């Protein structure tokens, strides 16, 4: 379901910085194809993050987020070797979860 994300998580001074790239069209629904037919909206609507299995972040997105979205946020705590898992759910109900080890 979708292509893998790229997740980078780095712990420093008690804060874990997470940087995520997601592979998604993020179609607005406002665009038309070459024959003039509207392209239906299709976008990541929700993103959640877990640190070592515990929910830490949740976001709701609209189609104004750029194609192949980039997201960066900071978690209090976390240490090298810990796990950060990101899940997205899109407007078609498709979803994907990827995990990275904190460096």
């Amino acid at each position, binding site marked *: 379901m979708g*292509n*893998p*994300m*790229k997740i980078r998580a780095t712990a420093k001074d008690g804060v874990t910085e997470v*940087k995520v*790239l*997601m*592979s998604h*069209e*993020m179609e607005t629904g406002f665009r038309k194809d070459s024959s003039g037919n509207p392209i239906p909206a299709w976008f990541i609507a929700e993103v959640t993050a877990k640190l070592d299995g515990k929910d830490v972040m949740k976001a709701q997105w609209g189609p104004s987020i*750029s*194609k*192949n979205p*980039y997201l*960066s946020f900071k978690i209090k705590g976390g240490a090298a070797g810990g796990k950060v898992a990101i899940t997205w759910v899109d407007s078609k109900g498709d979803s994907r979860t990827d995990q990275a080890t904190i460096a």
Partner: protein
Amino acid sequence: MTAHPRAGLATLLLVAAVSAGVARAESDATIEGIEKYREALRDGNPAELFEAQGEELWKKPAGPKSVSLETCDLGMGPGVVAGAYAHLPRYFADTDKVQDAESRILTCMATLQGVDVKKYVDARWTSPEKDELVALATYVSGQSKGVKVAASATHPKERAMFDLGKRMFYFQGGPHDFSCATCHGQEGARIRLQDLPNIPTQKGAAAGWTSWPAYRVSSGQMWSMQWRLADCFRQQRFPEPIYGSDVTVALSMFMAATANGATMDTPGIKR
């Protein structure tokens, strides 16, 4: 108007000088703003997503023979990917041709995997076939990140390719009289706000050659050098260059050899 003509002229000059100054300040702010924007994009280049896809394609058995591309010879011996892109295009004895990374990948797909590559050559950009080729080129180029460009110059066919590429670079045609040189043959020029590398110089060739394949922010697409060249020709109002053809390899040879010594910074990110 009763003012002395001299005074009028002086005023005019003063106004001109002031407005020029204002324009310059505005343009400095613009350039600074754009630099900040580009800097913000560099951290988290979506090209990494395509690099990962390319790596998967490279290592996955595929085609009628169901083998991977891992034993492909990109010029540094079978299976050597690290640093290979920085040494291309180069002459390959098995095909008796000078090849860039992308035409060489096609060769490997045909010989190792038994794939009918004509379908890949003919497929339009943004087709699944071309997406595969671009992802593969992105992966291979990424394995040369930080490596110095060293396009070979020893074989007569490489030399001939360089000369043909240079000639193509200056070749004018179409309703607009455009050649590559129209936009890429002068120092410090830009189209709209887009800086144009002066490709016949080492610095200019390096700016172009070392930053493609690149993620294009405007379209959210990953473009290989072949795609970059094809779209330049489209904008020149030229017919479509055939994927991996000698025209494209010749221009790549001209650029790569002119850029020799520069450091690969692929995959890049572009407006």
